[in-house]
């Protein structure tokens, strides 16, 4: 009966049509793209205004309920999973783009705006929202901010954090904070806006964001290079970075290339094979400089071969060699790691992690790829065909702490851009010191004293 009275109290706030309790809705809204957890929320509410959210938070505090924020549900760390009868707060119906300021080049949006819609809106203003990644067609801007989403253009345009000029949030206490108000300069002490960016909904929920738009990107070209080793990859990065205006610098291994070629049914980009490949994207105006860089690298032997896009279609097609990797290895139930270290330490780090895994499991195939330009490496461990999924995952979990210990030794991050959520929560201590984690728990206490905002995520309980 209590559930019923709760449902009717919530309905009084958002309206009957904005509450869902069907099994299908509970399952769909109770999880993100992470598939390790069984969703079990008590209901889903769809507020339409900030005022409604304030009331929801008030009820949650009164009755000690847990709220889980839900955006496009494309997260990979379980940050939006509700598995303990929480109330899911979906931002699907707070999806209006309010206003564009042609002088400030900012746009005021609600959190439920889909990333791709914001990109399209910016394009209509002859500007650009430059944060981009594979799930942009589903993910929402509120979730992007709460996870400080990165993606494929970070090298040139930065993270989601760098595009946020202002935030309006409802804290766990129920306060409405209007943070930074779209200012560029604002030297008035602690910038609380940045605490909420990447907070994974543990301090409060975002109800409005002022987003800075960029000048539209110039024409771009993609180069795909065959590179003999990791040290050469770093050297190529150095040489090209001096000569060309790079928008992306990605690498992947020959094993990754093999999976793409056999899975995607596309031909090899060039005759020569090599241990590693580099995909770099640059502004067309700096193509001359890139040619000079290529000649220098070819001469010193740090590249073996390379191709360059001659049209927009070819640029998109060349990206497929890199972007097709995840999909191509999916049949092998990959165990995914999203790690980051300082760029200069990438080769040594990669070798150390490979050794750690291979020492225990010489039969496991390791697929490396990632955004070298950001020091972000994706390590995928593939399941051998004769291993069951359960025993494979259990073994990977057991070696995972050893891998994370290597991350800690290299002063890296256990989660470069996928967030912490539930999946990486217990490994947070490999990247953050006990003192830091204590501070984070303290901040949580300040903004959300009753622990109603996405409890159990990000921080140890």
């Amino acid at each position: 009966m209590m559930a019923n009275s709760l449902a009717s109290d919530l309905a009084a706030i958002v309206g009957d049509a904005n509450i869902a309790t069907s099994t299908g809705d509970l399952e769909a809204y109770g999880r993100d793209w992470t598939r390790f957890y069984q969703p079990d929320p008590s209901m889903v509410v769809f507020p339409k205004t900030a005022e409604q959210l304030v009331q929801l938070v008030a009820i949650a505090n009164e009755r000690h309920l847990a709220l889980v924020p839900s955006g496009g549900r494309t997260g990979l760390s379980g940050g939006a999973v509700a598995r303990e009868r929480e109330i899911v707060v979906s931002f699907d119906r707070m999806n209006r783009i309010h206003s564009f300021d042609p002088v400030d080049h900012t746009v005021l949006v609600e959190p439920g705006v889909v990333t791709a819609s914001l990109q399209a809106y910016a394009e209509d203003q002859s500007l650009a929202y430059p944060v981009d990644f594979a799930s942009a067609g589903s993910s929402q801007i509120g979730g992007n901010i709460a996870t400080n989403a990165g993606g494929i253009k970070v090298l040139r345009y930065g993270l989601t954090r760098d595009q946020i000029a202002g935030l309006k949030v409802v804290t766990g206490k129920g306060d409405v904070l209007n943070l930074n108000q779209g200012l560029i300069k604002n030297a008035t002490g602690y910038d609380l806006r940045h605490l909420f960016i990447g907070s994974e909904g543990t301090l409060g929920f975002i109800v409005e964001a002022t987003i800075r738009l960029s000048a539209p990107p110039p024409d771009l070209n993609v180069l795909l290079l065959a590179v003999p080793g990791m040290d050469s990859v770093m050297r190529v990065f150095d040489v090209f970075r001096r000569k060309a205006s790079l928008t992306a610098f990605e690498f992947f291994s020959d094993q990754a290339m093999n999976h793409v070629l056999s899975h995607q049914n596309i031909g090899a980009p060039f005759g020569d094979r090599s241990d590693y490949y580099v995909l770099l994207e640059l502004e067309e105006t700096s193509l001359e400089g890139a040619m000079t860089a290529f000649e220098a690298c070819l001469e010193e032997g740090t590249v073996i071969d390379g191709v360059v896009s001659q049209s927009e279609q070819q640029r998109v097609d060349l990206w497929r060699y890199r972007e097709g990797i995840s999909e191509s290895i999916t049949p092998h139930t990959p165990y995914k790691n999203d790690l980051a270290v300082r760029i200069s330490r990438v080769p040594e780090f990669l070798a150390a992690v490979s050794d750690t895994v291979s020492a225990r499991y010489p039969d496991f195939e390791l697929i490396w790829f990632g955004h070298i330009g950001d020091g972000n490496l994706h390590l995928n461990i593939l399941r051998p065909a004769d291993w069951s999924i359960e025993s494979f995952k259990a073994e990977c979990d057991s070696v995972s702490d050893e891998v994370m210990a290597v991350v800690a030794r290299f002063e890296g991050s256990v989660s470069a851009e996928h967030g912490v959520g539930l999946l990486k929560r217990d490994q947070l201590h490999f990247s953050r010191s006990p003192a830091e984690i204590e501070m984070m728990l303290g901040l949580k206490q300040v903004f959300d004293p009753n622990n109603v905002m996405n409890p159990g995520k990000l921080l140890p309980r």
Partner: protein
Amino acid sequence: MKVLVAAKRVVDYNVNVRVLSDESGVDLNNVKMSVNPFDEIAIEEAVRLKEAGQAEEVIVVSVGTSACQEQIRTALALGADRGILVETDEEVQPLGIAKVLKAIMDKEQPEIVIAGKQAIDGDNSQTGQMLAALGGYGQATFASEVELGDGTATVTREIDGGLETITVKLPAVITTDLRLNEPRYASLPNIMKAKKKPIDTYTPADLGVDVTPSIKTLKVSPPAERQAGIVVETVEELVDKLKNEAKVI
């Protein structure tokens, strides 16, 4: 055997073109330009003939402003041996281009001309046919397969609802369809080498050709905008809309 390839500089296939507000044409300012995709296929086919030992020399021709050198350089990087730019600031139309290509054929005497079946800007699909008519050459349009014989070419053509195979005598004009081949990427070492390959430049007047446009564009307009979809709340509402608004049931 010599093979001549025609390559047109066009607005990149992936660019969203915008119609100028005075409806005189599309906005070409700061728009990405590329080789016409069908001409990319023509270049690839010519280079494959050369790699198979069936052609000795591949010459690429482009007609237009000096910027067309970029597209010629692309073709040279892909394997063409030398380029010819016929430079003009006039808007060149299919007949003008066909006349220019005829003059180049008289000069170079190639056995085969390969060109795209159409350019994606004007969508005319006329140049190849006009060239064949002007020179009295054989023509095999919309090719999806080309096989060279002794003084002949056997070409499979993509036609409505099927394929047609014809044999033409050389010299002949072949225009390419999408399925003929899959063009390769331009290799960076080959781009470096291509810098040394020669490009000859002529004007239409040098070739004794008049490219003055014979067709005047009256108006260019964008396609009608599609209405955005709506979300209906109930099945009843959906049925009602289908019945009374869309009138499909």
